[in-house]
């Protein structure tokens, strides 16, 4: 295959990407060997890619890192938490998940356990369904990672809050209460609404799964 300069220029970027077939590559290599101008274009283009790909080409304004770290730290504190920074749409989703999960929990309980479980369920209203929580074999609670009252730590398993609730685990009062205390007023209000729904459905014999 013989190709001209225009064809080489058209493919030179793909050539550098390794995105040309063997025949074309061979033809281009042959061309570069005989055409000084195209060889110069190839080397120049390669030089461009190497120079601009160098980390040193990226400069940030003075104080950028410090300001970023500060803003993230503020956010991490507020959301510790998790979740006050979560987008608003997650709140109703979380409420719904807890509503569903709560039903399953409620239906799996005996009458006398209900008040305690209801309290657990209430504390869980702001837990995002995708939040990773920890459960352990032989226990019925799910915990925020790092909670001090996780039993059987050697048999820990991580899953999402939604999955934990679907499996019948209920929130640990200790670590989830702490989490509830940092919830914003908006979250608390939504939690109360979800709780009202839960209460209503507790009386609904059709409600829930298990």
């Amino acid at each position, binding site marked *: 295959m013989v190709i001209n300069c225009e064809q080489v220029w058209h493919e030179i970027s793909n050539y550098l990407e390794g995105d040309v077939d063997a025949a074309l590559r061979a033809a281009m290599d042959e061309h570069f060997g005989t055409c000084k101008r195209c060889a110069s*274009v190839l080397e120049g283009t390669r*030089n461009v890619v190497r120079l601009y790909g160098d980390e040193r080409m990226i400069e940030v304004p003075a104080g950028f890192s410090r300001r970023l770290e500060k803003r993230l730290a503020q956010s991490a504190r507020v959301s510790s938490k998790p979740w006050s920074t979560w987008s608003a749409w997650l709140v109703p989703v979380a409420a719904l998940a807890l509503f569903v999960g709560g039903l399953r929990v409620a239906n799996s309980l005996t009458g006398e356990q209900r008040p305690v479980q209801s309290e657990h369920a209430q504390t869980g209203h702001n837990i995002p369904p995708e939040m990773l929580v920890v459960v352990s074999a032989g226990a019925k609670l799910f915990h925020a990672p790092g909670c001090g009252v996780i039993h059987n730590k050697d048999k820990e398993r991580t899953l999402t809050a939604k999955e934990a609730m679907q499996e019948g685990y209920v929130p640990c009062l200790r670590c989830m209460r702490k989490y509830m205390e940092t919830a914003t007023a908006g979250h608390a209000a939504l939690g109360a609404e979800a709780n009202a729904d839960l209460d209503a459905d507790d009386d609904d014999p059709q409600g829930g799964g298990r």
Partner: protein
Amino acid sequence: MAEADTVLNNPGTTREQDLIARVQRGQNELFYELVKPYERRVYAAALAILRNETDAEDVAQEAMLKAFANIRQFRAEARFSTWLIQITVNEALMRRRRERTVVMEGIDDRHDEESEYAPREFADWREIPSEALERKEVRQKLAEALGTLDRKYREVFVLRDMEQLNIQETAEALGISVASVKTRLLRARLMLRDLLAGGWEQGWFSRLPFEKGSKPW
């Protein structure tokens, strides 16, 4: 889902994977450590799209916060850096859309340059060695050259060649076709090659101690 535990207990796990798993498990304070290696790239991506340092910094911060808020949705099969850059590009594009008219964007994007571009021929050009980037004036000249490119070329070039996204990822981040990425990338690279080679004629690099005639063309 014992994924996170598996990662933590796997001695082959990279530091980054370990950090991701820990942040996903609630150790929020480690998030900055996780993203610090990429903060410059995040800023550069935002700047390429917004061309304003203040806006770029603000969007970079917003993108980091969004990544933090959504860290549990990150899946290990993706590259973390790519995920971060894509969030940033998305944030920056949204910011720009808010601040400019949709009509202007549309017109600009339809004019994808299909005509051939003939690279210039230079009598005196030689390779600029990477060591030259130690010099601020060289970096400045390169940045200025990049700044002269039209937006559509600059964005593709920055994402592919500076941010190191692949062609497909660049296309996805910008919402354009793979073919458009290739066309624009070719044009951007050739134009920059011409600008840099032309820089020799204009004396941009004349005071630099490059070996004279090391690669004369």
